[in-house]
């Protein structure tokens, strides 16, 4: 009997088209656009000027405040512009544009791919390195990692969970990372365990990635404390709270953090980035991005430097098919449709999905028939059919009491609704408004 979370969940078609495609290194683009806000929290402050020459891995923007992250140049070349440019939403946000010249790395970065197992640095030194390297949660949320590693006063963690679930359809970047960089990822896990001072690490992987489970089980069998757990395939198991429930049986209370039940969760990609930062001195400058879609010519997994345009990425995967209806950044369930291909790849971008026109159209909205399917599938035990009209009617106080802030925005309710109601769209709006009210109260 495989472990899984109990409440709700759905089973969308897997469509992992690229799970057998090895990771390819994407050639360098002509220019990169590096947004200064690729993470949750305060945008970083630029420390380079127009006309400056930068090397790969050089700091271009410094974090401001505690919840923020450094941003490094992903290429070598000349800074040509520091301006407000459209981000994934189309709204303009400050960004640094660098024209690529050659590929000159910072001297401090160790470029060799040899595995470095020995962790020589102390806990504080590691933490400082992670902070300097601008590492954020690479599972998609892009929350600064160093913030998660500094536990609030009086709190103690006893389990580290490494999230290799990747429950989103199509995405395979974490899957390929586990197979190709598994050993490095495990070293990264050890580093995280040392920082958090925990003795036990659980790696959760869904059962549809049998090769990754077997490989990691093989190479981690002699490692003390680390254990791989296969999980039943169910969306949204990759969500922090659901994964904790599945692996440890502990339930994170409403509006509390995982650390309150003694657990810290990090993504496998984040663990790998931590390995690179601590052992190889390499800041976060690239990541694996899945470019996939049934109509796409060559769906692939690419190692992409941040700032590369999505257009360039799609060209590398065989160009945009003619009948494309939507290009989605992130996963099919939680991702966001792009309104332009001229947007950069950022730290939180797990994949680019091409969806044909005939599959994207939303169907006509019909009245709610009170079938309660949305209640059945909600992994947080909320009542989406109720939350949507409350948000529409601006009944925000009631909405708060109905625990709208517990919503993890997984989209299961909108997916399952037989009346095609845009449940999540309005719930998201309600969350924004309720958050505003709470902030005003303080």
């Amino acid at each position: 009997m495989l472990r899984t979370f109990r409440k709700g969940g759905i089973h969308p078609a897997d469509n992992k088209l690229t799970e057998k495609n090895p990771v390819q290194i994407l050639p360098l683009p002509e220019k990169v656009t590096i947004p200064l806000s690729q993470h949750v929290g305060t945008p970083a402050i630029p420390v380079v000027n127009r006309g400056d020459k930068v090397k790969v891995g050089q700091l271009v923007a410094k974090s401001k405040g505690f919840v923020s992250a450094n941003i490094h140049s992903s290429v070598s070349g000349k800074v040509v512009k520091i301006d407000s440019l459209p981000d994934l939403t189309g709204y303009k946000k400050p960004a640094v544009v660098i024209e690529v010249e050659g590929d000159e790395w910072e001297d401090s970065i160790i470029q060799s791919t040899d595995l470095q197992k020995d962790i020589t640095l102390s806990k504080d030194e590691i933490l400082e390195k992670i902070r300097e390297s601008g590492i954020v949660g690479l599972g998609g949320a892009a929350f600064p990692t160093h913030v998660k590693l500094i536990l609030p006063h009086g709190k103690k963690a006893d389990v580290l969970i490494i999230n290799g679930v990747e429950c989103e359809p199509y995405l395979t970047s974490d899957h390929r990372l586990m197979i190709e960089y598994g050993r490095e990822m495990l070293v990264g896990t050890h580093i995280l365990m040392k920082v958090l001072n925990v003795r036990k690490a659980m790696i959760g992987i869904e059962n549809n990635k049998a090769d990754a489970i077997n490989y990691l089980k093989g190479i981690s069998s002699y490692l003390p404390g680390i254990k791989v757990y296969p999980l039943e395939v169910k969306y949204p198991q990759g969500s922090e709270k659901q994964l904790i429930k599945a692996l440890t049986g502990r339930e994170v209370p409403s509006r509390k953090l995982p650390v309150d039940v003694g657990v810290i969760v990090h993504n496998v990609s984040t663990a790998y980035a931590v390995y690179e930062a601590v052992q190889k001195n390499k800041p976060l400058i690239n990541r694996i991005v899945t470019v996939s879609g049934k109509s796409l010519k060559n769906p692939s997994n690419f190692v992409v430097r941040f700032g590369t345009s999505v257009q360039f990425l799609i060209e590398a995967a065989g160009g945009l098919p003619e009948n494309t209806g939507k290009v989605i950044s992130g996963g099919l369930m939680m991702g966001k449709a792009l309104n332009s291909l001229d947007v950069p790849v950022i730290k939180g971008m797990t994949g680019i999905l091409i969806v044909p026109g005939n599959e994207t159209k939303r169907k006509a909205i019909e009245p709610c028939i009170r079938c309660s399917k949305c209640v059945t599938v909600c992994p947080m035990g909320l009542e989406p059919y109720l939350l949507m009209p409350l948000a529409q009617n601006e009944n925000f106080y009631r909405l708060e009491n109905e625990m709208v802030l517990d919503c993890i925005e997984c989209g299961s309710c909108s997916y399952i609704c037989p009346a095609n109601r845009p449940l999540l769209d309005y719930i998201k709006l309600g969350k924004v408004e309720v958050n505003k009210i709470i902030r005003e109260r303080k």
Partner: protein
Amino acid sequence: MSSVLITILSLSSMGIVAAIILYLVAQKFKVLENPKIDDVEDALPATNCGGCGYPGCRNFAEVCVNSDTLDDLYCPVGGQETMDIVANLLGKVALQTDPRVAVIRCSGSFENRPRTNHYDGASSCAVASALYVGDTDCPVGCLGMADCVVVCDFEAIYMDDKTDLPVVIDDKCTACGACVKACPRDIIELRKRNKKDRQIFVSCINEEKGGIAKKYCSVACTGCTKCFKVCEFDAITMGNNLAFIDSDKCVLCRKCVPECPTDAILEINFLPRKTKPDKEKIIPLNKIPEKVKTDIKE
């Protein structure tokens, strides 16, 4: 016979006893209320729109009666007339306030502002605005999903199918401000109502540099300051690459309108210019269609 009598008697006596109990309870729990509140409420338009800032007309009446002055209190629907009546009833003085009307400050029709993508999410400006920039490249322009039409209690706004922009019916608009609050992009402004509902305003709120704004909308204000220079009444202010015409200072001389190189300044409800017919700039989209006009007359 007697059973009928007994029934009538017993029921009526029960009724009388209940009435006495009810009377006593009502006396015991009586809430003393200023009778003026009822009078003021009768004078108010009873639309319960919330335009005054209070939930419903009765609440507004209570506030009017209980406050010392009527300075901060104004019923936009009833207007000055109603406020004078209220002031008379209460023996207070109402401030003189000009009647206002809602104005849509965006001219980004299909022709002026090309659509770059198609939105098929929930049909709500609030949702779309929180999600992304909209189906054009303009980050501040009208999203065209009619949140303002939905909230209007007076059916004073409708969507023009040809332009995908909302249009205010001046006669019906009460300036309650519901649409101003509903618009996530703050396009709608309440401006002073002039004679014959004439209005001159900059129909754009884009604060980007002229060259950039012009790229995605042909009628964007580019901040060229031509109108600012020609205005003799200091009614126009410039800021953040955007001109703004103060409706309280504007005397409707129309000098600024032909100056605008992008036709961003609109004049509504004016007669066509006679002297320079080639520079005629009445924008048909803000004219009320014939059908709607006849509706109003009826």
